[in-house]
């Protein structure tokens, strides 16, 4: 059945093709690109834009190739005066209410609408504006919505609803008043939005973008009184190359480091360092919970979109979350305490910038409790409440960093390969794989196994939790103690595991949840486009980097060992508790 072939005619030529595909997919396979706009593979079949229309013999109207399947005997025309006119007119209609300020748009050069306009060769349009300009939504710390640029394709809604089951946005109003909006138009910052940014990743235009903080970062870089240090998340090294025009999934760790130095950061560190630290803390937390009959399953807490999701939708299950901060926040706390002390820098002069594949991190770093360093220094430096500072000052996405590189004339492709600075730049293969779904689990197991059993792990590559299956399960034998673990990516899959927990049917001891499809490498702040093919290439690079690392287990990271020796004393110790662990809040849905 699966390989059944059908006979169709396209533009007068006969073809034998696989059954079950849409006309659009089928034509693509035989070398005909039908222009489309609102359709996005694996995300949206809203079928609203009416660009990908084709003629099917016998049909009353033109047919949308993105949702209509090719069937036996179908006679299809992919271009004709009528089809071309329809595509042009519909695109012109979209353009009528879309601002023509491409030159000063942040998606300039990477905009599907712009590209399609060029593809269809539209040079002028008879249509003028028909609707008033709506105000931008700047209520969110992570994302900005620019409704004027919205073409109502529905991708953001589809990804929010179908991939994430968050339903933060939907169409509101009708006719020309139709818009993408939040519950009662309150704005993304005031509703149950997880800030995952998948909407921004799938938006064909710049209607929804990350909240850009590059200007502020530039200002601090150019300020001689500031010590600006940067941490880069594991997924950046497989994303920034793409954003700088290199091939998909390019692994560019060394170039990234030298480019960041060139950009003017005083120190270039690696979030993988604190990823290793996370493994230490989280690993010991898990062991402790297992030993002490703590709340199980324990669920990872590295992914801030996921954190906000559970706070909104499953507040009763918050105790299942690991109390560990995410690696980015651990980094900020360590940088402004341990590192500041070590180098004897006034923590207030330190600016911590995170380069993240993630828009939710922008929100995370502004959570009020994320000021452990301030608390640490408060008494010592006699600080007042108004002097409060956050552990992490700015979060930039892959895309923002790429723009900064471009603005400063960095020839990224030809940058030399350099190493991270010490000591917060030293990491293991376990830290690297945090970027992929299953990575935290795999890293944790590498450490937990050895800590619990006291024996080295034979095969540290835990293939069973790799790959893009929605929910992955594994049973681990920790020297006789058998535990079941699960890995989920996307909030839709997380929801399944949570519902299991709330029903009391969860068989797992440990669960890893990543908000974005594929994990951080498919994060909402990554290079556009991000497709499943591209995610795979990024994952391949991540596992390659893991392989290349001399040390591949977090507990073997010498810098981590030094951190404990010099400062933290022991995992789950007092300082760890103060600086590396956190608590969560219950949030409503409305």
């Amino acid at each position, binding site marked *: 059945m699966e390989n059944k072939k059908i006979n169709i005619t396209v533009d007068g030529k006969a073809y034998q093709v696989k059954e079950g595909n849409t006309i659009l997919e089928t034509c693509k396979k035989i070398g005909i690109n039908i222009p489309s706009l609102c359709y996005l593979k694996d995300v949206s079949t809203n079928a609203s834009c009416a660009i990908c229309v084709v003629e099917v013999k016998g049909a009353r109207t033109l047919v949308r190739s993105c949702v209509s399947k090719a069937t036996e005997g179908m006679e299809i025309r992919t271009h004709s005066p009528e089809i071309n006119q329809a595509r042009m007119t519909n695109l012109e209609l979209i353009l009528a209410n879309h601002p023509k300020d491409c030159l000063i748009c942040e998606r300039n050069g990477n905009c599907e609408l712009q590209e399609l306009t060029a593809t269809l060769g539209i040079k002028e349009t008879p249509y003028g504006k028909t609707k008033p300009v709506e105000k931008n939504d700047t209520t969110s710390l992570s994302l900005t919505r620019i409704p004027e640029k919205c073409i109502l394709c529905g991708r953001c809604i589809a990804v929010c609803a179908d991939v994430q089951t968050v339903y933060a946005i939907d169409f509101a109003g*009708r006719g*020309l008043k139709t818009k993408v909006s939040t519950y009662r138009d309150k704005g993304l910052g005031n509703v149950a939005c997880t800030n995952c940014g998948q909407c921004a990743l799938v938006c064909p235009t710049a209607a929804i973008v990350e909240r850009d903080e590059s200007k502020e970062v530039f200002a601090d870089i150019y300020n001689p009184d500031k010590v600006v240090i940067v941490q880069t998340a594991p997924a950046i090294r497989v994303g920034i190359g793409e954003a700088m025009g290199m091939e998909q999934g390019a692994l560019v760790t060394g170039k990234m480091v030298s480019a960041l130095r060139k950009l003017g950061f005083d120190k270039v560190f690696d979030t993988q360092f604190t990823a290793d630290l996370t493994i230490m803390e989280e690993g010991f937390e898990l062991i402790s919970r297992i030993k002490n009959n703590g709340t199980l399953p324990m669920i990872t807490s590295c992914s801030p979109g996921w954190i906000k999701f559970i706070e909104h939708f499953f507040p009763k299950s918050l105790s299942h979350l690991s109390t560990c901060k995410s690696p980015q926040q651990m980094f900020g706390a360590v940088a402004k305490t341990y590192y500041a002390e070590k180098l004897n820098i006034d923590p207030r002069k330190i600016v911590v910038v995170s380069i993240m594949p993630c828009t939710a991190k922008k929100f995370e770093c502004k959570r009020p409790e994320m000021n452990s360093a301030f608390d640490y220094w408060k008494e010592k430096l006699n600080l007042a409440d108004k002097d409060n500072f956050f552990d992490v000052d700015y979060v930039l996405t892959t895309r923002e960093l790429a723009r900064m590189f471009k603005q400063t004339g960095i020839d990224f492709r030809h940058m030399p390969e350099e190493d991270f600075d010490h000591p917060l730049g030293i990491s293991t293969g376990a830290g690297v794989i945090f970027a992929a779904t299953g990575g935290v689990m795999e890293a944790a197991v590498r450490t937990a196994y050895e800590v619990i059993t006291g024996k080295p792990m034979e095969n540290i590559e835990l293939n069973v939790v790799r790959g893009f299956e929605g929910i992955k399960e594994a049973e681990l034998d920790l020297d006789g103690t058998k535990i079941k673990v699960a890995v989920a990516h996307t909030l839709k899959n997380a929801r399944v595991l949570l519902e299991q927990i709330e029903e009391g049917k969860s068989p797992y001891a440990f669960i890893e949840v990543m908000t974005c499809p594929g994990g951080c490498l498919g994060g909402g702040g990554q290079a556009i486009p991000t497709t499943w093919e591209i995610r795979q290439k990024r994952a391949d690079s991540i596992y390659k980097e893991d392989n290349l690392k001399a040390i591949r287990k977090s507990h073997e990271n010498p810098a981590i060992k030094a951190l404990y020796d010099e400062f933290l004393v022991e995992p789950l110790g007092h300082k760890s508790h103060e600086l590396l662990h956190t608590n969560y809040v219950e949030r409503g849905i409305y």
Partner: protein
Amino acid sequence: MKISDLAKLNELKENAAKKILPDKPYIAIGMGTCGIGRGAELLFDNFERTIKERNLDIILKKTGCFGFCSEEPLVNLYIPGHPLIIMHQVSENDVIPIITGVLKGIMPYRNVLCRIEEWDFITGKFDFGKGLTDYPLWNEVPFFKWQKKIVLRNCGLIVPDDIEEYVAVGGYFPLFSALNNMTPQSVIDEVKASKLRGRGGAGFPTGVKWELMAKVQADQKYIICNADEGDPGAFMNRNEIESDPFMLIEGMTIGAYAMGASKGVVYIRAEYPLAVRRLKSAILQAKEYGFLGENILNSGFNFDIDIVEGAGAFVCGEETALIHSIEGKSGRPTPRPPYPAERGLYGKPTNINNVETWCNIPVVISKGGSWFTETGTEKSAGTKVFSLVGKVKNTGLIELPLGSTLETIVFKIGEGTGSQKRVKAVQTGGPSGGCIPVEYLSTPVDYESLNSLGSIMGSGGMVVMDQDNCMVDVARYFTEFSNGESCGKCTPCREGLAQTLKIINKFTQGKATVADIHTLEELGKVIKATALCGLGQTAPNPVLTTLRYFRDEYDHHMIEKKCEPGICQDLFSALCENSCPLHMNIPRYLQLLKEDKLEDAFESTLRDNPLPSSIGRICHFHCQMKCRRESIDASVSQGDIHRYISDTIYKEGKAPAVYEKIKKGRLPQTHKRIAIIGAGPAGLTAAYYLVRLGHDVTIFESESEAGGILRWGIPKYRLPLETLDFEIQFIKELGVHFVFNTTIGRDIAFADLERDYNIVIVGIGAQSDIALSVAGNKLDGVLSGMDFLKDVAKGKQLNIGRHVVVIGAGNVAIDAARTAQRFGSEVTVVYRRLKSDMPANKDEIKGAEMEGVNFLFLCNPKEILADTSDKVRGIELMKMASGDIDLSNRRKPVPTGESFILACDTVITAVGEEVEAGFLKEFGIKTNSNGNISCDHFSFSTSHPKVYAIGDAVTGPATAAEAMGIAKKAAEVIDFNLMNKRRFHKLFRGFEYSDEVPLKPEGGNRHYTFKRPLEERIGNFKEINLGYSKEQAYAEASRCLRCDVRVIVNTEEE
């Protein structure tokens, strides 16, 4: 009481039959929404109170609507032994007489619409009684005559919320039969055999749709009734549910059985509270009697119906949107496939049919599919219910066999506009449909034929439009509706309709260009081809059909910036001004007169109209037909006032001062030479404006004097020569050269004009009488009306004899008749239609009657009879009967076969005139098939590059004012073409006058001018209309409501 077997059902029916034919009188009030809207509730209360107070043995019922909405409230009156009487327009005052009559056993003599002797409920027949033949049978009334009531079989005759009455007329027997004697498949087969198609508009074969659904296996299936009737002007479904809810429930129950569904939903508009109430009550009753719910009729079959009230979004008529709406989501359509039959409500297989489709089911089962196909056409079987509304005399709910023509609907059932106004178009299918022009009304109403005209059947809305409808505005209205109802999902509908509306608004504001027409067409095509759902795919129909059939109206808005019917407010100042062919600023001169600025008032009229006094006497007064004052009492006599103004100015010798001003305003010499052929009203007007624009103008006239029809056709008693001469004299003074007694082609070669002039304007009028095509039309004594009037004007001695017969009904006929009568002859005007159909001025007809002219209506000449010396001795006239109303909105004269002879000495024929332009052909000037000069509507250019044409020569016979209006427009265009500059406006000026709107109507009733007494008119041509006195003129002027003043009201934005 649960009905579980046939015996019980029969027993119920027999008992209930006494409700339909009781042994005592009953009165039933039509209480659909339409009846209630016209006071049926009060009426019912009155009846109820009276019956109660007097303790009378009369049954009082509330029934539904019998369909004739414009005649509501309808009351059914039954006295045993007599036919059922249907009374119309019954008011509270009729209550006592009706009841008194009933008590005495006497039928009322007023307000009776018709009688029903027997009624075929199709599922059962009832005999009410014979007699009362003074009243027409129901199907002799034009409104009902052409109808066939299948769906509406019970409507207005049974009590809608009494299940027993429904059973009494045979209801629920079909369900019983389906459940007991038929398999689900055989039910489907019967529906397939009936060729019933979806009545919601798309026309998909119902049986096929059912079969698709029946074949899908599922634990749960749904059926839905789409009662989301959203078209403006459509109320079929509302009425069907209000008047006969059980018919719908039974249809759905049968359908559910056939398709294996156990749940039904009626999705109905919340704006239909009465329908919802009756349906709810009906569902409860059906359950109580075991026709719905568990184990229906003891068959083991379970089916229940829920009601979901929709908030009234037009798009929810679309299947997928409707399903989403029921599910509690926003009503937005999704692409099909998957079709609801595969994945519908809550993901389960679902069938959706329209109310009317379901309502057809019980009769299909009762009478069989083949019986059903006896009605309608091969492809479109059965009947269709329409709501007939708009500019039509009889409005209401009608049902007639598919394939009946639009003409039947509009003119036979609707009886035309019911006024003098012409039907222009019919809009079918509501905002999704198209406007079909009157020329196409012979089209049969079926799915395919309407599609071929660019319209659709839709759910059955039918809006009739007359000459006062602006088709651009109609397109705008429906586009605005669709645009507002678009769900906003897909680009073509959301953005395309908004752009369409924006562009149409450019037309209504006079800002459109030719490119806009192209864009509208292109947009319409793309929206149709690519919108996601039916709403979008059909929304461009009103625009596309009006562009197709009424392109000239778009052109008027675009090129002339005029809206002839006076709808598009931005394009005119006042309705009178807009309807005046010369676009005289009427409110201005009325106000100036009111303010006692007589000279200014005169100057204002003179700048707009070169012959204000003459035209003030003889105009057709288009302005009066549109005057808003008419809605209060009577229109303002604008013409009599401008006649008063100019007469007074002339009398008081004040003209020269004004003339001086106008002469001074003549633009500098352009040295462009213009020749005008014909010194009639058109030629004179063109000359008047062109000479003032600085051109060198020469008029060539074959007669010895100027004036054309005004001099030679209009009798002096209407227009004294001195008035005409005085006004023509001024045109001469302006510098126009006149060359009289000169015929082009005979006295001067056309080639000379071609050579010597920059421009040649042909304004030769339409002066040739059309010959009467009957035997004897060449006899001695047969005269043409135009020739006769001309001869009289020239003072020729004529011997017309004692008896004169005039054939015709236009102004020429009446002029000829009154003129002949002045020579002492006995005159008879013969016309084949009715007096009300006469095109002549009403005042002229009245004058002729007063002076003793005889009229013979419904008579048509058969032959003119000769005496032995080949002279007329009489005329044989065929008696005509008034037939159906034809496309011209008049009753068609039909020969009766009976004729008679009228002795006479002279026959004057005045059945119309035509243009004599044949001689121009050899100069390269083309004519149309009707003889008119072929000429562009807006540029007045002919097929000859130098030659323009104006007046009746272009339009065929029309009024003097219309000819002058064309000449005025042509002067503007010609000047622009010559000078390549807009200069025409320089001939006009502003005047100071108040813009205060009278807060209440002033000036009292309409003032009538003094007329010469009858005895003073005999045997002479003295002017009859003596005009206004000063007081009258001032008072009449102050009657103007000043609708030219637009007050801008600030309305808060939502």
